[in-house]
């Protein structure tokens, strides 16, 4: 008699289920570009080996009366050639299917996930283990046996630039006891850290977080939650793509050139890029009009403050805003904007501030009255909440930070990329092998904001390479010629 393991879906994941729609199926992808064409047979072997160790990835999503839950399955994943657009829908209700897919195209190994399963950092662990297994199979000679693998460096050195709270460290927590670690279907880390009222900090978290925060928040900082921007929030509009695929454009550049720009302003790379994004949106808009406030949502990886080896969703969203006044110059100048964003972001991204807001959120979620609301009603409520919060957002930004893979994979992987399905213009960044990739996704065909973004960087001496997927009928026709 098989009695399958199951676990209730965590706090953050419920919103992904409620908020997914035709435009934004809540799928993200991380891909690694190798120095050779990918061998599908070896990749399948590598996938099989990695899949064995990640029980979470065996899960299918089921619907209970009050909550969704993840249930173990006997399904096997199969490597396929990339034949769909980026971040195509994965989860279909009532079908017992895996919540991720692995594909390859030319030199790229691609991992796509439904966001309810895992977040960027969790997915990065899986991808890095899979790529490592693949490279070992591909180059059996130069393998330092398991166990001799150099431990992952967490790179606190490039804070505040890439290691800031806006980014995830690629630090794979299980590299040391490599091969043996199995990621079980465990309780999510939200419940672990924020459900009970325990004041003592997790061991090491405090010191760790302290080391990473270059500028501790002054205790007397005036914290006024009512200090919200008075003007309306600007929202980007445009022409929808014909079959709801995201408009995807990847910008690749040397990471140190971008870092230098951020360092010159004394801000983190994430905040600098966000400022460039705000400027691009402003310059590509027909004029901000009355809506002069731009708001970005920035996910913060909570594992850096609250250590966790669970690959399930464990992040919080921080919002940063900037209000333009009438006298803003015509040319892009991300400097002052980035300094203001940094000033506003820092206090919100401290472990204390995050813990406070998450505890409130979880207390709300665990309210007895809400718990007995049937799931379909909960979904409607969450959709409503999501709709309201979307109305107060201009763009979204996500930075996975600098990634180092375990050898021998690291030296065979060039750039790594991070895409996400988007209901509004968005970019996802990550850097590997000295190359920073910024992948823009948007539900609209227009690329004006990406043009301004690229030009802002190139005019400051950054070498930018553009790769874009064909989206409109004309573009597809031309590419086939």
């Amino acid at each position, binding site marked *: 008699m*098989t*009695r399958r393991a199951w676990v*209730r879906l965590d706090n953050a994941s419920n919103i992904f289920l409620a908020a997914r729609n035709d435009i934004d199926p809540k799928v993200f992808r991380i891909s690694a570009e190798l120095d050779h064409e990918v061998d599908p047979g070896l990749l399948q072997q590598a996938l099989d080996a990695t899949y064995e160790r990640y029980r979470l990835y065996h899960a299918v999503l089921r619907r209970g009366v009050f909550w969704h839950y993840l249930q173990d399955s006997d399904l096997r994943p199969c490597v396929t050639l990339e034949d*769909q657009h980026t971040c195509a829908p994965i989860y279909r209700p009532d079908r017992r299917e895996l919540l991720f897919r692995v594909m390859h195209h030319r030199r790229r190994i691609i991992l796509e996930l439904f966001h309810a399963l895992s977040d960027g950092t969790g997915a990065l662990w899986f991808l890095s283990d899979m790529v490592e297994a693949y490279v070992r199979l591909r180059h059996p000679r130069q393998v330092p046996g398991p166990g001799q693998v150099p431990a992952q460096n967490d790179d606190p050195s490039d804070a505040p630039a890439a290691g800031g709270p806006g980014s995830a460290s690629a630090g794979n927590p299980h590299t040391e006891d490599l091969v043996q670690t199995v990621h079980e279907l465990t309780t999510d880390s939200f419940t672990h850290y924020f459900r009970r009222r325990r004041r003592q900090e997790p061991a090491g978290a405090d010191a760790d977080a302290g080391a990473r925060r270059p500028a501790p928040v002054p205790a007397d900082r005036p914290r006024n939650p009512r200090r919200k921007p008075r003007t309306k929030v600007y929202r980007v509009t445009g022409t929808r793509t014909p079959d709801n695929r995201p408009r995807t454009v990847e910008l690749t550049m040397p990471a140190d050139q971008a870092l230098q720009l951020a360092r010159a302003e004394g801000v983190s790379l994430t905040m600098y890029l966000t400022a460039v994004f705000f400027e691009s949106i402003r310059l590509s808009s027909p004029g901000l009009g009355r809506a002069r406030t731009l708001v970005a949502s920035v996910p913060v990886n909570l594992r850096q403050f609250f250590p966790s080896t669970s690959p399930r969703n464990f992040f919080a969203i921080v919002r940063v805003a900037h209000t333009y006044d009438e006298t803003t110059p015509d040319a892009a100048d991300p400097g002052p904007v980035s300094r203001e964003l940094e000033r506003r972001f820092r206090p919100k991204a401290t472990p204390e501030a995050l813990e406070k807001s998450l505890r409130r959120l979880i207390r709300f979620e665990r309210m007895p009255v809400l718990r007995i609301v049937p799931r379909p009603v909960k979904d409607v409520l969450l959709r409503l909440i999501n709709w309201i919060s979307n109305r107060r957002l201009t763009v979204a930004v996500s930075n996975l930070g600098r990634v180092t893979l375990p050898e021998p994979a690291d030296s065979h992987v060039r750039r790594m990329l991070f895409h996400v399905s988007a209901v509004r213009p968005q970019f996802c960044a990550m850097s590997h092998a000295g190359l920073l990739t910024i992948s823009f996704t948007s539900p609209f065909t227009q690329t004006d904001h990406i043009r301004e973004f690229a030009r802002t960087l190139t005019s400051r001496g950054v070498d930018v390479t553009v790769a874009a997927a064909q989206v409109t009928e004309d573009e597809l026709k031309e590419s*086939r010629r």
Partner: protein
Amino acid sequence: MRHCSACGVDVEGPWTRCPLCATALTGQAAPGPFPVVPLRFSRRRVLRMLALASIAVVLVSFAVQLLFGRDPAGIGVLRSVILGVGSMWLVVLMAVGTRRNVAKGTVYLVVLTGLVCVYWDYLTGWHGWSLAYAVPIVCACSVIALAVTVRVMRIEVGEHILYSALTVVLGLVPLVFLALDWVRSPLPSAICGALSCVVLALFLLARGPEMRHELAKRLHL
């Protein structure tokens, strides 16, 4: 790699114009990282709207029946035709909707046919045939049918157990009719009730732990 002089960027892939600003590119094309994926259109939305609209039409046509008298001389045949076609369509939509879960589909079918029969009986002057015959027969058949189906299709216990249990519980409902003396010919209800009691007893003996596990999972608060 091709180059856009206006943006100052290099462009990968087969683009002849800059994907950002549409300026003509110079230089040799380099292979791009994306496959060319043809446009795909989904009719899911359209189909869902059509299904919802047809359900609304059926329900309205059912409700309209209340406006006509119970006298069979009025719209007798026409009424039966409308109710028959309407309920057939509801059953079809329901079967399509639950096609991936036969056990769930069976429970829905029992509830749907039961309700339609009672309503039909009510509209045609309440002769009691629905409670005396239709409901017990449908319930008893569903209990047996599902027990056979899950074996033939080798459906995993966890997948069907709650629905199997639900059909059994629905099979006990005719006993309530008997107790309240709503039925003139008690035999079908008695048979259905007895069958359900036997199956229920077997169920609790053989599948009790699985039932509790599934219930704990689905009713988790």
